[in-house]
């Protein structure tokens, strides 16, 4: 029975998507599938951190957002005037701050411990911050003054969005390197607290720094990832219209479905490549070492393995994979909207996917991503109907609006309860690690 477990469960999930397509619409089914695939990639990244290494990060939403930032900086329309007005001033300020902080970190262990050292550090940091603001502020003002209703940012490179994917992964990996360098090797709780903070700050920067990606004014990108076309272009393309006519389809619906199918294909390719690589890595000496470290840090350290370095490595790789998925998502959405990055959706839901699917098992994460991704979005069209039946037995009338409110709140409670139940009664998940 156990060897049929994986195909049966995946078959069941496929059935859910097919039923959604038949009973609701294929458009809906496919858009849930694209989100499910993206969630599956995010879940794989988290699974590397948690399942391979036992690292708990509460800042996944930050990696997702940084991935999105990578895409818009690569693919947004260039704003040469803005860049010329102050772009280099901003870059100079950021480099100055980075060099200043690195200098402090390097100098600290070389100085004599005591009150003098602490006082010097505080004074140094204040002066550093003041100089940084003196360089940064005029540059930011200049950039944001450039055509604020349409630009007001440093602009992107205007390249194809698919080129932004690795950049997004790189951004997320870089942030993970900084955080991991600080918080790994200390108590395990510290990583959870520090990542909670970094995610909050990434979102704050995206919301408030208009020069970067236009803040809450949302920055759109100019292209779709190659080879996905725009629907409007398809609808006037002669080859497409002839095919549609031959099959007797509606061109508008057919074009949206084709675009979604292309996205699904693209995302599936990335997903399968990642699964293949992770499986290879997991069954190599490196993978065995990672699991040995996770299961017993002390004995792994006694075997001469550098536990903190390996943790840092896997933390960066996992975050980069999440960043890649975030980049793919933003390139599909066509714009970055900082308000949409909810910790609930992109941190804790992903956690539930990993734990439900089976920590430590790559296919488990994929299954969890697709299944929970479907459930989360299906509740939107199934929930109110079910709730209406439930509340119809109540003695007082319930309005549609409060029905929607209640269904949103029940979603929170359901997620929490599912997490607690799986953690307690089935900690190995649907597809346990072999």
């Amino acid at each position, binding site marked *: 029975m156990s060897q049929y477990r994986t195909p049966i469960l995946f078959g069941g999930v496929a059935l859910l998507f097919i039923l959604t397509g038949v009973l609701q619409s294929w458009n809906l089914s496919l858009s849930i599938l694209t989100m499910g695939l993206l969630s599956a990639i995010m879940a794989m990244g988290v699974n590397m951190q948690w399942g391979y290494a036992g690292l708990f990060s509460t800042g996944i939403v930050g990696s997702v957002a940084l991935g999105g930032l990578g895409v818009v900086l690569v693919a947004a329309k260039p704003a040469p005037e803005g860049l010329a007005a102050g772009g280099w001033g901003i870059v100079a300020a950021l480099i100055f701050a980075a060099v200043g902080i690195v200098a402090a970190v390097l100098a600290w262990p070389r100085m004599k411990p005591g009150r003098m050292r602490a006082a010097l550090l505080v004074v140094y940091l204040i002066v550093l911050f003041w100089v940084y603001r003196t360089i940064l502020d005029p540059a930011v003002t200049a950039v944001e003054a450039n055509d604020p209703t349409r630009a007001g940012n440093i602009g992107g490179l205007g390249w194809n969005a698919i080129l932004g994917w690795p950049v997004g992964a790189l951004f997320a990996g870089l942030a993970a390197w900084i955080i991991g360098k600080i918080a790994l090797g200390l108590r395990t709780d510290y990583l959870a607290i520090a990542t*909670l903070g970094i995610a909050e700050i990434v979102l704050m920067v995206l919301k408030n720094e208009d020069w970067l990606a236009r803040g809450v004014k949302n920055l759109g990108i100019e292209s779709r990832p190659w080879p996905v076309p725009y629907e409007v272009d398809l609808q006037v393309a002669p080859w497409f219209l002839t095919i549609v006519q031959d099959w007797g389809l509606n061109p508008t619906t057919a074009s949206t479905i084709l675009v979604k199918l292309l996205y699904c294909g693209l995302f599936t390719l990335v997903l399968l490549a990642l699964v293949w690589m992770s499986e290879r890595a997991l069954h190599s000496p490196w993978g065995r070492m990672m699991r040995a470290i996770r299961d017993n840090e002390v004995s792994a350290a006694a075997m001469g393995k550098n536990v903190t370095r390996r943790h840092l490595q896997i933390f960066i790789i996992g975050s980069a994979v999440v960043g890649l998925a975030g980049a793919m998502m933003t390139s599909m959405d066509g714009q970055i909207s900082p308000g949409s990055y909810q910790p609930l959706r992109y941190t804790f839901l992903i956690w539930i996917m990993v734990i439900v699917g089976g920590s430590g098992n790559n296919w488990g994460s994929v299954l969890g991503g697709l299944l929970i991704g479907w459930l989360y979005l299906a509740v939107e069209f199934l929930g109110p109907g079910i709730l209406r039946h439930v509340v119809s037995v109540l003695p007082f009338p319930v309005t549609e609006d409060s029905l929607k409110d209640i269904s949103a709140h029940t979603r929170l409670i359901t997620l929490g309860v599912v997490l607690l139940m799986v953690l307690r009664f089935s900690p190995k998940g649907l597809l346990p690690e072999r």
Partner: protein
Amino acid sequence: MDILNAFVAFLNFVFVPGLAYGSQLALGALGVTLIFGVLRFSNFAHGDTMAFGTAFVILFTWWFKSMGISAGPLPTALLALPFGIAVTAAFVLGTDRVVYRFYRQKKAAPIILVIASAGVMFVMNGLVRMIIGTEEQNFADGARFLLEPKAFKEWSGLAEPLAIKSTAAVTVVVAAICVAALFWFLQRTRTGKSMRAFSDNEDLALLSGINPDRVVQVTWIIAAALAVIAGTLYGLDKSYRPFIYFTLLLPIFAAAVVGGLGSPLGAIAGGYIIAFSEVIFTNAWKKVAGYLLPADWLGDGLLQALSTDYKSAVSFSILIIVLIFMPTGIFKGK
């Protein structure tokens, strides 16, 4: 005169708000640090425990008001506090029984407890939204000011007003009473001593016949009480919005880590350090500087280090600095 004006402006915009906010953070961080000391995990549900308790305090306040009960010049919420604490403590003990006890008995890794607390956080967050909704609630009543700005101006003859909101005064007084009571409890009573012993060395404490279940239960009750008091004071002083308490989690954790996780004294110091840093870094110093420096030195900036949007960036930076340079915190936690 100008120096006095600058001093009053400093008191009005930095010291009084910082003191009130610091007291609220200190109470929150005390709860986190106690849980950490005895149960040995960082409780991610603490922010939502605050929101949960405050929601019940608000409900009881409304009920009291509808019956015509009030506390005179003091906020009615103070009368409702014990009832809110009772409900929250019961709920939190319930979560311990249903969720945490299992992992404790299994001696699971602390990180599993952290994840479980995230699950509890969700459930509580959803419950709070169902009970009281997501809108802002203003439940402060009684006298608005302890010291009216106009009265102060007339009394002192200064150009700069000084206002002390009664909620700020109530916050500081209540926090002082709570801290005194807590330290008395930890230092003088048998249960408090057994809590400290359990926190210092679990095995030794068990050997000497301390009942672990009792210690854990008392810890949860105290943490719940502190959370409800902190949440209510914060809600009175600012206003009550359920989702705000999730964002309070970061400054509270930062305060607990800065002071040293597991150290009650550290949590209090950490609370004030975080609060004053946030206020100092996000305050526009132009007003204070205007009295001290000649006008043409000032320029046209607000003399503000960070915009108020970046408040949590301040607590995060302090957290990071402490993690890099002294990971056990100021008071040498665990």
